[in-house]
């Protein structure tokens, strides 16, 4: 077998490894949005979706901290598109209310 063919097969093995690695992120919502948040930590949408996944897993403390992080993003990040800011604000409010109802901890001021 020639060297180019061996290198080509090695390259395909590399693709397969990358495919298996990325496929593991698509196992469920939690894994998917964890990876997305790690890649885009100051983008509201993946962080909110990760918070929702945390709520589904009943990890309320994690969800609360993620939603706090979203509030911080909305307060400090200037270059968000208007639609992103609007949708994130609405989602943040809704999930805050849901979390408060689930944890029975009352409304938070923010």
């Amino acid at each position, binding site marked *: 077998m020639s060297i180019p*063919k061996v290198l*080509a*097969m090695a390259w395909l093995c590399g693709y397969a490894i990358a*495919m298996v690695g990325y496929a593991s992120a698509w196992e*469920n919502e939690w894994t998917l949005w964890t990876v997305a948040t790690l890649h885009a930590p100051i*983008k509201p949408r993946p962080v909110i979706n990760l918070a929702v996944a945390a709520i589904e897993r009943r990890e309320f403390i994690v969800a609360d901290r993620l939603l706090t992080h979203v509030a911080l993003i909305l307060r400090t990040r200037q*270059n968000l598109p208007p639609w992103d800011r609007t949708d994130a604000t609405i989602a943040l409010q809704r999930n805050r209310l849901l979390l408060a109802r689930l944890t029975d901890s009352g409304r938070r001021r923010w």
Partner: protein
Amino acid sequence: MVGRVLPWCLLAVLWAITGSALLNTTQGTYEDAFFVNSLINQPPPPILTPRGLSRWTLWYQINTHLTPVAIRVVNLELHLLVAGLVGLLASQFGFSPWMAVGIMLLHPLAVETVATMSGRGELVSAVGVLFACVMAMATSPWKWIGVAAGLGLSIAGKESGIVGLACVPLLLSVRDRRWRVVALIAALVIIVGAWQTRSATLPSGPSTPLQPWATWAGLQAVAAWRLIVMTVLPIGQTVDFDYDGLARIWTWAASLCLSSVAYLAWQLRQGNALMATCLTWMLLVCAPRLIVQTPKSYFNEHQMYLALPAFALLVCALMQKVSGESCSPA
């Protein structure tokens, strides 16, 4: 003998590993809930419309046997069919198909397409486009019926399958340069059609206003260039990249890079027509995305799926040029 069988054995092993990884799921992800909510307990959608066939297949599965694994099984089967068609196309150009099949089957950019309901349209569309291309390269007198059927299937899968209208004459132009004029006309039809519908997908409402075209095209150019780079080096994959957070200079840089690819394709048109065709095919997949605004969503990995067959053929052509052998003896 070993040299011919070993690549296929390797592909089979790698496919078994990656396939099982893709089937390892416990719930629907990404936009799956949207499809379930819109199709469950609904009458069947019409098939002979853009996206009609892919929506019908999803409707059937959602209303008969809805599990996340079942959706992915069908997607994997379609992905396998697409890889087989790519191998067939590669063999029509004189390459041994294992490399083309391997790239298509194992490319990480296909993960999002296979793992989600959103990818069903891309898969059905790719089957149609590749079937049309295979039929166009065949010598049968019935091939044009097959080409028409394939293009119809591609649009019934997803509207983006319209690029098949230019892909077919592009591939034919590798053997007969007169098809370049047809390819150019088809590409212009696609671009003009995309411009006419550039705001057609926007829902009404104040939350998603139309962006200035230059802003949209610049951000999509960054996304397109990032995905083209990831076809070669699939590092940093994510479902939701933060394009809005990038400095504006990146839009200029990405536009320059895409223009360079187009220039490279132009320069290769005489010396290596197949490479030029593959590069043009990849750019054609990206082109409508720079024009048609899809609200709140930039160029995704699954929307790049139709460019992977071109990349697979490009690699085969490159290997032949570098090593003087056609991937392996046919």
